[in-house]
């Protein structure tokens, strides 16, 4: 279409794009800069673009609030969830492919209906159940919940990959004497790498950022980052320096992962809409 666009149209496009970028990036700049901004300058308008950065907020988070523990807890939860959904999801996807009847296809369609169940509808009875067996306040709650919620999507994502593998490939392995499990380990799983990468970044994003389940199912020793932040904003007056620093710590690892795995993030996000 470029061949037709007049100069002023092209300039207008850049102007709109510039506005879009400013709108998207300013809030991120605000939270990152506020985490290094002295408390007294927090409400100074116009905002100081150049200021003397301070590490006092970070120091308070780590020394007084034991924030590193929240970080570790988030790592424990999200890595366990990501690992188990990838293992379980790829196994089930292969299982769906192996079914003789067409039951596999039907099951995959049913899988996505799970997305329609609101988290709160699961959380309340799940809390009662876990409470009865004294598992509230441990990592078990959020890990189980996040796994169950993301597993259907991960299975569905991998299933569409496995379905695309040529039949001859699996058969030739069979002729060469490989068992079906060996075929999975040596042929199917390695070929799934792109789907695994997409699942990894999407599940990580979900589990790392999830709040509601963790808010109720964890306790002081197992709080993840999101609950830590929730406790800061629950206060009547927010300590902006501390909570901004907490937010920055929470978002940087994911932004880094998302940046390096951009391609897989995009395929994962668009999988539902464009592929099938």
């Amino acid at each position, binding site marked *: 279409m470029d061949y037709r666009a007049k100069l002023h149209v092209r300039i207008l496009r850049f102007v709109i794009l510039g506005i879009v970028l400013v709108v*998207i990036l300013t809030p991120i700049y605000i939270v990152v800069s506020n985490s290094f901004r002295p408390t007294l300058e927090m409400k100074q308008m116009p905002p100081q673009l150049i200021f003397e950065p301070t590490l006092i907020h970070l120091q308070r988070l780590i020394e007084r609030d034991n924030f590193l523990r929240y970080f570790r807890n988030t790592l424990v939860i999200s890595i366990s969830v990501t690992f188990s959904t990838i293992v379980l999801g790829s196994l089930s996807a292969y299982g769906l492919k192996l079914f003789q009847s067409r039951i596999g296809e039907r099951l995959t369609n049913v899988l996505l209906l799970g997305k329609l169940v609101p988290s709160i509808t699961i959380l309340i009875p799940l809390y009662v159940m876990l409470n009865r067996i004294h598992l509230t306040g441990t990592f078990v709650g959020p890990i189980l919940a996040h796994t169950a919620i993301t597993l259907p999507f991960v299975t569905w994502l991998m299933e569409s990959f496995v379905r695309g593998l040529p039949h001859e490939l699996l058969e030739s392995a069979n002729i060469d004497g490989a068992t079906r499990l060996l075929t999975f380990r040596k042929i199917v799983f390695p070929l799934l790498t792109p789907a695994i990468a997409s699942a990894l970044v999407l599940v990580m994003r979900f589990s790392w950022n999830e709040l509601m389940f963790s808010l109720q199912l964890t306790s002081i020793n197992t709080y993840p980052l999101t609950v830590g932040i929730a406790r800061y904003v629950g206060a009547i007056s927010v300590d902006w320096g501390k909570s901004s620093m907490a937010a920055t710590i929470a978002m940087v690892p994911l932004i880094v992962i998302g940046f390096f795995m951009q391609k897989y993030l995009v395929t994962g996000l668009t999988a539902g809409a464009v592929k099938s």
Partner: protein
Amino acid sequence: MIKQKRFYWSLEKGDLLPVLLMAPSVLIVVFVMVIPLSYGLFLSFFNFNFGRFEIARDFVGLLNYRAVFADRTALRSILHTLLFSFGSISGQLFFGTIIAVLLLQLPRVVQSVVRPLILMPLLLSQIVVGLIWRYIYDPQGILYWALGLVGITISDFPGVTASSTALLSTVIAHWWQVVPFVVIVLTAGLVAIPRELYEAAYIDGAGAFTVFWRITFPLLRDVYMVILLISGVDTIKIFDIIYSLTGGGPNNSTISISMHAFNQAFMRPNLSYAMALSVVAMIITFAVFGVPFILNNRTKRER
């Protein structure tokens, strides 16, 4: 019915291996989703609050459901959730479409620089998004300073401080986070449309709007449908962003179904009532987004 085939007790033949492969996943989903869901549904017909529980004594029938429809806050939370959903989705589609179309018309180099930047809000936790916007909306904060430069004061747009605009303010914060999702998905759909279609249309003298309405939109109908469903379901569940941005206030003007149910379940506690409310939330989700989803799948298969 599916024709029954022989079942082999062997890993190399028949359905034993697939059943074993799927068993762990199915077990997890059953234990964490199906059983709690049924249990919650069951308890919503009882008067239950942690302590002792006797089926005969504590059965209350539909009382909890009647209580939901007699509870003003519950009805308001349903209304807010639906308004939030409608507002958020319409804005997402509107801004998402404009940005996606615009982005594709820019030079490749610019696109490849801009795209990763656009993805950033999507990677943030909703609670962080709420926190950031709470700072932005602060009466002494940056938004009102900027608006003040063009002569708009807090009484013109009270933001999160007044019931009238609080919900709109949360919707705007939500747009900021999820419009990029729509942009990414639409872009994937847009690049699949053959360029010749557009060239032909331009030669015939069609304007940009006609081209979008007559060519792009019909071809992307399914993509829009999926965006509608994914975003729709996510907005009906809305909790985190409201939790950190307004906490449901002022005067409950931004309380959502999930938040009201959460408070009733864990702050009161009023467990069986909260379960009834959360079942209502699920029914609403199915009615508003599940039915179109199933119908859409059916027509797709027929085509």
